[in-house]
């Protein structure tokens, strides 16, 4: 069975799905990722699906589950690179991918994670900073 590689780049885990995954491969990826988040202490996960020509309900559910698991493990998940045809199909299928953050490409995904982490920083970082953001 094929395995999807999980790369660590700085504080982020990058998963670039390049193959037409069987359901078993998807489940394995889900498990691998949970382990890697804990092992590396990363706070961000980017799943790049640029190469996927379809996302069906099984893969959609896997993405939602990964997002939920990583949230429990204090990591932010962003799904990036969804193709237009895939997005149109998902809408028709009725799959809304609730709770998943998305971005157009890896770069934007990284910005999104950085912004989310920074927001948390501000909130937990004493009153002074929190006040300055509130006034903007």
């Amino acid at each position: 069975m094929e395995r999807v590689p999980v790369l660590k780049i700085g504080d982020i885990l990058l998963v670039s799905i390049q193959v037409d995954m069987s359901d078993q491969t998807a489940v394995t990826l889900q498990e691998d990722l949970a382990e890697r988040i804990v092992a590396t202490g990363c706070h961000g996960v980017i799943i790049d699906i640029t190469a996927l020509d379809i996302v069906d309900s099984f893969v959609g559910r896997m993405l939602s589950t990964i997002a939920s698991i990583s949230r429990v493990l204090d990591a932010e998940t962003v799904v990036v690179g969804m193709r237009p045809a895939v997005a149109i199909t998902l809408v028709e299928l009725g799959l809304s991918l609730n709770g998943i953050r998305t971005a157009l490409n890896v770069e934007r995904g990284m910005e999104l994670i950085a912004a989310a982490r920074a927001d948390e920083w501000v909130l937990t970082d004493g009153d002074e900073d929190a006040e300055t953001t509130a006034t903007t």
Partner: protein
Amino acid sequence: MALSAEESGRLARLLSEHADRLTQRWTERVGASLRGRLSQAEFARQVQELHRSMIDATRNGLTELSAEQGGELRAVLAELSRGRARQGFTATETAISVFAVKDVLLELMEESPDAGTLRDFVAFSALIDQMGLFTFESFVRTRESLIADQAEQLLELSTPVVKIWEGVVAVPLVGTLDSARAQVVMERLLQTLVDTGSPYAIIDITGVPAVDTQVAQHILKTVVAARLMGADCIISGIRPQIAQTIVALGIEFGDIATKASLADALRHVLRLTGVDSARRHQRRES
């Protein structure tokens, strides 16, 4: 069967015996109705070609236009109708070009009438009727394909997606949106988001005269699909009547941002991105 093999042979003889006079009279009769939109020389050439292929076909014992011997003749007729349709002639004008030969044949046959003349003329007429109908059908087919081509070109023309700011694209929709066009717009917009890496899209419907449930659905689906890809859509230019329709139809726009004008929508987007960068900027300083 339009005519028997013997009648076909007699038609061939009639056509070839008086070849010059026949084509000349034929050209004259039709030339008047074409009113200079087609040069005399060009039409004369078409008549000669038609005349020649009629002779060839009838010499081979043509009994029915759809028969095998009629292949060449059908090709010439189809070519003629295609040309006329593209040049903007009406179906009637095109059919007359063929039917005119009837009058000419009648003139010729009246010069030396005998017992079989009437019967022959009826048979020849039947064949010419078939030719006329075939012309008409080819004409309609050509027109239909012209219309389909134009509809496609219009679709291409009428759905521009433009980048109006760094990270912001806009689609100004103009005219009636049907399902097919809405689909094209949707696909094109989403693809542009990917190509330009823009996280914001403005769909401006100032130029859309009416919105029905189906069109509203298409717009909503586009917005949801864009969100799945990681981009936000803002709808601008909703006119009062359209707002009323949307509410009357019970269409839920939910948390989709709507703005009165394209300018408002752009300001809204810039404020969103502006606040973001300002905040980040501030944090870096502290």
